[in-house]
């Protein structure tokens, strides 16, 4: 059931080195402030920090108390304060307030600000404007790559998506380039580079510049990873907007996996406490079901439970010696497995309760109809009903975006959610999640036309308006070109999938993964000109092969995929599947793991 890797699949490089590097650097930075100190940590950094250095390591290096950076005044009595923060202006003001309050009180303490992953000039400037630049010392903790799993590296920068794709802010590109540079220093240069997207291109160029400046050192290394593929999130919003049905994705959609771990509430743990569980390849049970379509998971788990029971039962009829053996060697493993199994069964039940209701079926059906481009009228009225029922604004927005991108249509529903969503809409449009058919005027014309229909209480006509408007969008054309909607005779067998479409119940092959597959097959963008044009990316698709004879055939089957702006677990599962089929192994580097809700939230304006 769980797919084993092909025997010739290449070994993954050891990424735990990245953790050690980060830890050592943090310890070095902490030691720079000798003596007892209180550490203020930004909320976003807490989980990543936890994966690098636990509290006892911090204590070893004389961290006395830990505080969260928040909008409350801190009551620290320590003589030395250390702040571990993301380079955000908001944080600088927080620190400035604290320091200035001390000054007013005539108190002198030592302050140190550690920026992770790097400091920005704007931050230092704010410190200067607030008049405390001389009072604090600034440092950088270049911790930009967190190995969440054996094949997944995350930069843990969810704001990358909004900053770059909405605000046009390019400051994180440098961070990406630095991270790539670190990887090529540690694991050898990448002989083959491909990329698509404006951000991909900029990151690539900046990275190359870094390599040139520091020539010599890396060149001697044998490349461990043969290919690198950079991809902008805005190449493929559709995949990220779909509901996920692969177990890991579903867990993420339902419980929100945060920094590689999930909080299972009482309804899952069947006790009164919630439990934080690490989800990665080390969890043997999870590892076998993470990439499975949800419909298979339950059956698998119950089979597993039976096996487990059988193993427990073996102890009957054992003699003393065998029993001793059993207790000392196997029992612990079995117990562990038992615990994990019951957790995942609990999670499944909880998901089933939430999802197997009629609503979810309908929702999935609508999504598939949108992807395939039929029954648009029905889908549109489904979405309308969704809005009318005020189920959840984020859900409604997501469906509207999906409708808009796949069909080039737009559906306003402002009054129902409050004025700040007027801004959300303009954000979505700017980021390309709501598409415009033509710039400016036509769009507003469409909007007013539609809004009139709504206010005329002729909501039923709205669908007619849309079908008349629904110009075949690029997504349709791309989908056709790349054959994203597999044609199936009869039922799609989700147990033994044939292609990557299984991650969406056989209805749709993720566009991003298909692009990667096609380029790897051709070893270039050749022959994909039309697709690239349809993606509006003609200037930003690149291939760069440096002939490197030292690259072993094994390394040439290792591929690092860099998602700029985030990737979903469905995409990861799809590529893992592709890897198994073709004898590749994929390594994922993402600015953050994302899903449809996160994308929508990133675009939403909320009342602070």
């Amino acid at each position, binding site marked *: 059931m769980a797919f084993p890797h092909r025997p010739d699949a290449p070994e993954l490089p050891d990424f735990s080195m990245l953790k050690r590097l980060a830890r050592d650097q943090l310890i070095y930075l902490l030691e720079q402030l000798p003596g007892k100190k209180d550490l203020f940590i930004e909320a976003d950094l807490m989980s990543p920090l936890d994966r690098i250095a636990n509290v006892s390591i911090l204590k070893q290096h004389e961290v006395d108390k830990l505080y969260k950076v928040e909008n409350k005044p801190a009551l620290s009595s320590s003589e030395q304060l250390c702040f571990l923060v993301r380079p955000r202006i908001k944080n600088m003001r927080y620190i400035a307030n604290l320091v200035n309050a001390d000054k007013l009180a005539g108190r002198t303490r030592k302050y140190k600000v550690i920026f992770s992953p790097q400091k920005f000039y704007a931050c230092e400037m704010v410190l200067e404007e607030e008049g405390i630049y001389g009072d604090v010392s600034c440092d950088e903790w270049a911790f930009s790559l967190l190995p969440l799993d054996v094949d997944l590296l995350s930069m843990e920068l969810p704001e990358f998506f909004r900053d770059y794709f909405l605000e046009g802010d390019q400051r994180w590109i440098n961070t990406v380039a630095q991270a790539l540079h670190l990887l090529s220093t540690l694991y050898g240069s990448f002989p083959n580079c491909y990329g698509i997207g404006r951000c991909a291109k900029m990151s690539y160029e900046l990275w190359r510049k870094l390599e040139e400046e520091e020539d010599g050192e890396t060149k001697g290394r044998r490349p461990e990873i043969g290919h690198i593929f950079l991809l902008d999130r805005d190449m493929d919003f559709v995949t990220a907007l779909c509901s996920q049905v692969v177990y890991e994705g579903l867990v993420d959609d339902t419980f929100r996996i945060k920094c590689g771990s999930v909080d299972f509430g009482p309804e899952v743990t069947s006790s009164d406490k919630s439990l934080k569980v690490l989800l990665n390849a080390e969890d043997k049970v999870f590892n076998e079901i993470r990439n499975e379509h949800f419909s298979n998971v339950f059956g698998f788990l119950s089979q597993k439970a039976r096996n487990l029971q059988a193993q427990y039962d073996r102890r009957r009829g054992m003699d003393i010696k065998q029993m001793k053996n059993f207790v000392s060697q196997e029992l612990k493993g079995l117990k562990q497995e038992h615990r994990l199994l019951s957790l995942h069964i609990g999670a499944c039940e909880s998901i089933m309760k939430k999802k197997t209701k009629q609503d979810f079926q309908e929702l999935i059906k609508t999504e598939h109809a949108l992807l395939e481009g039929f029954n648009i009228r029905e889908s549109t009225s489904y979405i309308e009903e969704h809005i009318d029922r005020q189920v959840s604004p984020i859900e409604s927005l997501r469906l509207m975006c999906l409708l808009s991108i796949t069909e080039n249509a737009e559906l306003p529903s402002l009054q129902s959610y409050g*004025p*700040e969503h007027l801004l959300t809409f303009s954000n979505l449009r700017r980021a390309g999640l709501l598409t415009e058919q033509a710039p400016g005027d036509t769009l507003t014309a469409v909007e007013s036309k539609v809004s009139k229909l709504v206010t005329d209480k002729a909501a039923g006509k709205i669908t007619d308006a849309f079908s008349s408007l629904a110009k075949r969008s690029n997504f349709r054309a791309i989908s056709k070109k790349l054959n994203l909607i597999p044609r199936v005779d009869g039922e799609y067998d989700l147990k033994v999938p044939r292609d990557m479409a299984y991650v969406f119940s056989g209805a749709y092959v993720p566009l991003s993964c298909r692009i990667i597959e096609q380029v790897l097959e051709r070893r270039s963008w050749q022959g994909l000109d039309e697709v690239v044009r349809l993606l509006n990316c003609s200037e930003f698709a690149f291939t760069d092969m440096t002939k490197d004879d030292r690259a072993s055939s094994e390394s040439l089957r290792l591929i690092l995929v860099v998602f700029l702006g985030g990737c979903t677990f469905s995409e990861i599962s799809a590529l893992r599947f592709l890897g198994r089929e073709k004898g590749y192994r994929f390594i994922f580097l993402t600015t953050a793991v994302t899903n449809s809700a996160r994308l929508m939230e990133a675009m939403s304006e909320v009342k602070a």
Partner: protein
Amino acid sequence: MTWLWLKESQKADEYLREIQELGQLTQAVQQCIEAAGHEHQPDMQKSLLRVGLEGRAGQGWELSLLLSGSSQAASFGKCFLDRFPPDSFVCMCQDLRVLNAVRDYHIGIPLTYSQYKQLTIQVLLDRLVLRRLYPLAIQICEYLRLPEVQGVSRILAHWACYKVQQKDVSDEDVARAINQKLGDTPGVSYSDIAARAYGCGRTELAIKLLEYEPRSGEQVPLLLKMKRSKLALSKAIESGDTDLVFTVLLHLKNELNRGDFFMTLRNQPMALSLYRQFCKHQELETLKDLYNQDDNHQELGSFHIRASYATEERIEGRVAALQTAADAFYKAKNEFAAKATEDQMRLLRLQRRLEDELGGQFLDLSLHDTVTTLILGGHNKRAEQLARDFRIPDKRLWWLKLTALADLEDWEELEKFSKSKKSPIGYLPFVEICMKQHNKYEAKKYASRVGPEQKVKALLLVGDVAQAADVAIEHRNEAELSLVLSHCTGATDGATADKIQRARAQAQKK
């Protein structure tokens, strides 16, 4: 002995063997080599070295090549001394060649060997550079194989710095000459050379030289110093380093007046968005000015909308902000947004009035929630009025009322509502919501009114499997039949299940 050997006297050989037997040959060779170092005459140096070499036959040919490049024959004697390390010999040859070169009367630096050793090669090179003897210095570097950064590059950089001071040569020629000589030599900083050029007052030349600087980080500070801020800005943007861009931006902000600064930004979208991000957090007023400057009414509208809920506290201020926003949207020809904004203003005022009259919390609720709150509070009339005023679409209103009344468990009012007119959303939602509140009795009331298409679903929801089966059979709908069948559980539904199976069989026969 040297003398004897040079005369090719037979005695020499004898003496040599004698020395060897005394075990002092190594020392003798060493002394010969050192003596050569202190000798000023090249001929004498050669002789001494050749003697030294006698102890190290086989490598003697190097001597002539090393020392003068002439092919004067050197006689190679037998090897008397094995394993004498060649280093000191080679070094001496190199040193002597350097010394002889600088002692040449064209150069005129009569250094002794001891002085030279005291001085070190670096200082000697510096002296040559000061005397502008660049070619010789470079030759020495190359000859001694000094690392490029300390050697050739450094001297080339010095040369270039001298070159930029030649005022009689045109900027273009100087820049080209320098680039031709320097190329991409590692360790050469074009920005340093450019700084020198700028120091000599040759700004244009400096800019030309900076073109050759591969590291943008190095270009920008100098460009700023030279007051070429706009060029600096585009260089910084090219570099992709946002910090660099920011440095230039702040420089520009202080240097230019506001209008010019904004104009500059306008032509550089990347810098503009960077600055906007900064303003959003730190200087909101500047952000507004930026949009104003560009006549970007759409963004101005958004700005005021944000202000209406983020910065303004008093209701009057909020309405005023919204009014400004609406005006901006009209200017941006975004009537849709403008209308929505005006609606919001009306809503705010109304919510204020509701709070005054009814008490409770209404401000900042969405329209939908306002109506819901009214219904929940039992103010049905007001709710109706509001829905009419804001033209809430019928369907949405029905959903809203349905949910609110069910939450209240006001079944009487719900029934009245359901009968007020034909439901635009059908009656299945009524059934669903009643079942959600576990009121089967009420649910059944509505189940009978559900349209034929959804009848089966409704009947199943209220748990009336038998009737659902009848309806499905009547419809002759395969999907419905299987749906009902899947709901047949236990013994109670056995009869129903049979009935369906029979109906199916019959349908197949036909």
